[in-house]
């Protein structure tokens, strides 16, 4: 049963810009899911992360469940080497602060920016940069 869009067009553009900025800054992928989650949010996020492997090896999925008042960030094993769980926790804390005030867009935007800022640069392997997304320079 469709009950309407979660975000207006302007809000959608802001969120897409935040995702694109984080991906351009880090070379990793930052998909975001906003919606109802039935069951355990952590397991839901892990299964969805497994379905997003086509995006690359370094994926950071953010699941926001407004109805359940839960936000879950999951990182792939490769992304975890550059983005620590502690940094994810800080971003989560910032996001929940905004969510508690009813600002979903602001919380997601700030959270993505914090995740991107906390991401370490890709490691140099055998004199060559580690493979990242298409935005990385050769």
């Amino acid at each position, binding site marked *: 049963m469709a009950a309407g869009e979660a975000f207006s067009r302007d809000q959608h553009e802001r969120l897409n810009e935040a995702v694109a900025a984080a991906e351009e800054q880090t070379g990793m992928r930052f998909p975001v899911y906003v919606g109802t989650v*039935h069951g355990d949010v952590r397991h839901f996020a892990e299964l969805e992360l497994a379905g997003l492997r086509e995006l690359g090896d370094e994926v950071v999925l953010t699941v926001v469940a407004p109805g359940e008042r839960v936000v*879950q960030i999951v990182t792939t094993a490769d992304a975890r080497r550059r983005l620590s769980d502690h940094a994810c926790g800080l971003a989560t804390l910032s996001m929940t602060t905004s969510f508690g005030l009813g600002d979903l867009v602001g919380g*997601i935007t700030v959270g993505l920016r914090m995740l991107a800022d906390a991401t370490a640069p890709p490691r140099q392997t055998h004199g060559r940069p580690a493979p990242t997304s298409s935005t990385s320079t050769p």
Partner: protein
Amino acid sequence: MLRARRGRPVSRPRALGVRALFTAVTALGLVVIAPAAAFAARPDVNGVDGHNPPLSVVSGILIFFVLPVGLTLLIALFFLRPGSAPGAQRYRPGRDWTADATWLGVPSREHHHPALAGAETLQHGEERPADAPDVAAAPPDETIGGARGSW
């Protein structure tokens, strides 16, 4: 449901009705008060001195009733409209979230976990399809990092 100052729940249609009634009373009050001041300042309102032609009934109604009421209704409609972002659901903590599931940063829905395609769009009160898996049954992956928060 909205909350009144004394903690008594007030339904949204009722709150809108109260606001509309307040707007209407204010508008009618202004319609009565504004012409009264004009009449008090002009004892020759009927054109006795010959310089000011008498105001016809139709013109009076248009100027002192239709115009103020129209402007008031226009302003009231501007403020009483459902939301500044048509089609978007505004999130309020503590209330049910019934909007459609939204993905960002994913090219197309084919990238999503196909087994959860039906479950993720379920709304409150809806039954899970028989073929949709229970996400809690999946074993946790220890190599996956991340964090969790609630508000």
